[in-house]
């Protein structure tokens, strides 16, 4: 029950922070950081996979509503929700398989790898669908890389802030 409540609050806070604050960031004119995938990143590791997919879809479609972007956020968030187990296994190794993993107990390096992969894949799908043509290939790659860097930095900072507060 507590997990549900926490995730509902996170959902609302992340959507509002994203659409009211972060979407107005225009770093160097075209870089937009997105940190709402943190909801998917921080979901309990033993959550049911169908539940997780529906949550991811709902999160994405909410952002899409605010940004008038069709279904690109929904598609990107679904993708990372679906491949999350693979990334978790790669980043955390045995402790994930043994079901003993707690996010903040893992070493910083594993967490960094996990967050980086999740955000990078999310951004790749997102911008690929947004730009939707290979005529702008260089622009696309630039946008993926630069936006990912800012999003990953922001996400890591946010993760550490949440942790300090809850202790």
């Amino acid at each position: 029950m507590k997990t549900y409540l926490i995730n509902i609050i996170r959902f609302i806070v992340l959507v509002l922070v994203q659409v009211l604050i972060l979407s107005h960031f225009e770093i160097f004119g075209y870089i937009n950081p997105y940190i709402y995938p943190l909801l998917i990143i921080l979901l309990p590791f033993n959550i049911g996979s169908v539940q997780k997919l529906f949550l991811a879809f709902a999160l994405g479609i909410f952002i899409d509503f605010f940004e008038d972007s069709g279904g690109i956020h929904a598609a990107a968030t679904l993708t990372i929700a679906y491949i999350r187990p693979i990334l978790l296994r790669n980043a955390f190794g045995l402790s994930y398989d043994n079901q003993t993993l707690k996010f903040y107990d893992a070493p910083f390096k594993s967490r960094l790898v996990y967050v980086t992969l999740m955000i990078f894949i999310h951004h790749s799908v997102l911008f690929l669908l947004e730009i939707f043509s290979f005529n702008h290939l260089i622009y696309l790659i630039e946008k993926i890389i630069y936006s990912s860097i800012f999003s990953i930095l922001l996400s890591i900072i946010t993760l550490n802030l949440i942790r300090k507060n809850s202790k």
Partner: protein
Amino acid sequence: MQQILLFLIKNKTGLVFIVLMTVALGLTFNAHTYHNSKFISSANFITGNVLGTSESVSQYFDLKTQNEILSEENKTLRNILYNSKSVQDSLPNDLEFIEDSLYRVQKSTVISNNYDKIDNFLLIEGGLKDSIKQDLGVISSKGVVGIIQDVSQNFSRVISILNTNTSINAKLKKTFHFGTLTWDGKDPNVMKLVDVPRSAPVKKGDTISTGGRSLVFPENIPIGIIDEFELDENVGYYSISVRLFNDMTNLKHIYVIENTKQDEAFELLNQEQP
């Protein structure tokens, strides 16, 4: 039958993923074509109110700039008014004139504005209850902003000129040569004017304005000046970079223009097609 069920249960994650992904991709493809992108729109009750509330707070930080823009516009309008000769005759009884006029102008404000994507939209105040309809033109004091695409009770969504799906009829102000104004998705200050014939005397610094061939915008709304141009020798058409007068990244007070004869004209156009 049992085996099918077992198969479904075993692969439920994959199936749910595929179904939801199909929906998401379907919405994405819809959004990439102009007239169909209405399923996911910020012109609805929840997003309109959230963005509207946020805008009503943040507008205070921008008041000074917006005031300057408005008084600048007033100055221009007064210049026109005092220098126009017919003003004495038409002022006293121009109410009648307005009633019968071709274009009806309403004011509105921008609630949310995108310009950093390939396909950008704006959300503005006013919807069905202010008799704003689809396909009305939206301009600011300095130039064209976009076209109304989707309307709810209190909000409207505008397809920005900074959208790869827009094409607006534009002309060289001096010579009446027509072309189509499009955006390539890069610089929010620069648009492309294509299909201007070889015979047009294109010069750097010339003004581009809306052409009268569109049923949406009145003629001679300024758009921008020619920044660079290039003649495609094979086709015989110019490709012109237009630097916009309008700062699309800083919009607040805008006007919605209704062509009162638009419906009639559309009807006629549709009749012609077999």
